């Protein structure tokens, strides 16, 4: 940019990127789970199906915090308050990596024949003072957890197999307590909006894993009403 004769303002650049649909801000997602005792079988299957079969998957050990920003409308009930969720993730095994700030929109399940959940998603790498930034912005921490697992890639698709741990009071990695006896399996793909054909690609891949794990469109609103 330094050599550019006429620098374009960042907002103009963003507007034209949005207009030409090149920002990968849509996430196509399927989720499922596999019990600990069967995890190894799925791991081996994924290793065979995904890229870089010889070197094996990447491992990750992340801490995720979910923040909410709420505006109180006078006289409004808590349900009427607007709420905005933001997630912060950091790699515990790579403290030198940038922290990740993530916005996730409402998941859309769509029609029955829509193969995956679709949600808008903005991933932003940032400096580690993001927690202080969000607190001063007016956000409050809602919950936090630790994820530990494997990341596989198949072309543009990303498959993660991870165990969720409750964050202990001491907040040290030794005080981790597994939340369930199973692994969360997520199959996702980030793409610019309007590329719905990739959803079929995901569905086909999910079918290949079907004997071992059922990857489905999870309706969170339904889950919330059960709890």
């Amino acid at each position, binding site marked *: *940019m*330094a*050599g*550019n*004769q*006429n*620098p374009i*303002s*960042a*907002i103009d*650049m*963003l507007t034209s990127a*949005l207009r030409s649909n090149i*920002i990968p*801000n849509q996430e196509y997602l399927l989720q499922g789970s596999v019990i600990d005792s069967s995890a190894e079988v799925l791991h081996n299957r994924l290793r065979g199906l995904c890229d870089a079969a010889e070197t094996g998957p990447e491992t990750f050990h992340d801490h995720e915090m979910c923040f909410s*920003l709420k*505006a*109180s*409308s*006078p006289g409004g009930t808590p349900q009427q308050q*607007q709420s*905005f969720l933001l997630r912060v993730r950091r790699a515990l095994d790579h403290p030198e990596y940038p922290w990740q*700030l993530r*916005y996730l929109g409402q998941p859309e399940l769509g029609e029955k024949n829509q193969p995956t959940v679709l949600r808008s998603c*903005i*991933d*932003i*790498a*940032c*400096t580690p*003072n*993001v927690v*202080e*930034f969000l607190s*001063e*912005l*007016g956000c409050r921490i809602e919950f936090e957890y630790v994820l530990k697992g494997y990341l596989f890639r198949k072309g543009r698709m990303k498959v993660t197999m991870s165990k969720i741990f409750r964050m202990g009071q001491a907040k040290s990695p030794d005080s981790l307590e597994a939340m369930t006896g199973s692994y969360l399996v997520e199959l996702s793909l980030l793409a610019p909006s309007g590329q719905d054909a990739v959803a079929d690609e995901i569905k086909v891949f999910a079918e290949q894993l079907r004997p071992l794990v059922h990857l489905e469109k999870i309706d969170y609103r339904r889950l919330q009403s059960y709890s």
Partner: protein
Amino acid sequence: MGVIVLQLFAVPEGKSGPQVIDILTKRVTSLGGVLSGSFMVDCETYTSVASLGATRSVHLLHNSETPASVFALLEAASGNKTVALVADNLFDLLMLKLSNFYQAKKQTKIESRGPRFEAGDFLVKLGSVTMGPTFKGILVEVEYQACSLPAACWDLIREFMQGFLGGCVPSTPPQYIQNRFGDMLGPIDGINQYLEQFNAFRKTTGIR
């Protein structure tokens, strides 16, 4: 990344902004400066809506020198603390999503843009500051790229700056640099100085 010093250059009576830029361009060129493109630093300020409680401001700055980054400087509700977040440029998109909570102050978008010169280890940027369509003044940025420690290179920077800006460059470093005289400086320190100057421009009517 070196030490950046930002200096206000008062526009002399009877001269226009472009005329001053022309004069400074000649001086920088005669010091061995070679024109190398142009630059831009811009700033947009967002303030929190009333329903969010105490008022906070987020200043969003971009610098063409670091085009993949956004600098978000948040003035805390307490008023005596600023948190400077450096993020990928999709942060702009997030700010748009936050429009129910933080709204851009109208007519306060301010930017400094102009020619950029390389002179050995120095980088010189002659910026015309405009707020909306209004010309507000001239900011000269000088960066000494070979060193990040002001204590080790301030004298050299001062001498170089006085060479083409003359008496407007004081012999003591600006307050911002003085407060960090023994620290290693980076891109955020340039941005902080721009914000200080932009805020001063916003408070002034007319040309500084």
